[in-house]
């Protein structure tokens, strides 16, 4: 059967679980969150939740980030100031 994991399609064995998928992907379950078809799964449910054909799985973790940065934008002529100089 086919499932979608983080936006990518992949094959999964019938009868396998979310925990099996994490093992297969070599992902430690303690630092990730898993969403199945937009529903967040409790960590305790990874073993029990069987994968079904067409399931959309999201596996998330933490990456470096403070906030997004506004990149590459310039002030328009109407409000032209040099931010570095004020």
């Amino acid at each position, binding site marked *: 059967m086919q499932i979608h*994991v*983080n*936006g*990518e399609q992949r094959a999964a064995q019938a009868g396998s679980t979310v925990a099996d998928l994490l093992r297969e*992907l*070599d*992902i*430690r379950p*303690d*630092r*990730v*969150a*898993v*969403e199945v078809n*937009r529903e*967040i*799964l*409790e*960590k305790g449910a990874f073993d029990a939740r069987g994968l079904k054909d067409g399931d959309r799985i*999201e*596996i*998330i*973790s*933490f*990456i*470096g*980030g*403070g*906030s*997004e*940065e*506004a990149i590459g*934008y310039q002030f328009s002529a109407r409000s032209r100031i040099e*931010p570095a100089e*004020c």
Partner: protein
Amino acid sequence: MSDDRLVIAGREFKSRLWVGTGKYKDFIETKKAIEASGADVVTVAVRRVNITDRSKENLLDYLDPKKYTILPNTAGCYTVEDALRYARLGRAAGVSDLVKLEVIGDERTLFPDTAGLIEAARILVKEGFIVLPYTNDDPIVAQKLVDIGCPAVMPLAAPIGSGLGIRNPYNLKIILETVKAPVIVDAGVGTASDAALAMELGADAVLMNTAIAGAKDPIMMAEAMKYGVEAGRLAFKAGRIPRKLYANASSPIEGML
């Protein structure tokens, strides 16, 4: 300063400098800069795990959640729905029930969508999150956020990553006067004197990322920020002299020849 602890929702923090983890060269530099900053709260973004390249290391291998308070954020979320989804995923990852809530209104300025922010905050507070909202320097919005149950507010000093410093000290001062909750100045700091100024105004803490990670020497700047925040805090508590237009001699006239 050791007894001068910051307390938010019953949690105590040693440092009044909070830091982001983005834009560093690598995890080693991230770790070293955070150590140099003395911060005990670090904010992190919630993103998909890279499943095609599993050799990539995990940020939390370098930032021990036992040592640091991990503050997941909803950076990059432009709708209430997205912010809720990212906040819930961040909590489900199992290291923190805090969230630095961002609902961004515009990609050029990254100013918060404060209407969406209040809506999302209300829902997350009900779900038991400790919601720390990234907000505008608007005293009315800050008050509303506290009223709906946010234990602290995080008004910006200037646009995220701009390094413009404290653009509106008077609004921040009004927030500090009127809001009965810790105020963490978040975003816009460019250098150590900006951090010191925020603390001199009476801010309870300062959160920054780009000012450190984007410096030529991030580790040295992290240390500078630590001293900036500490100096500003001490100056605030010590009580500065009032500003006067004319001179006031510090040496006595008496005894002059």
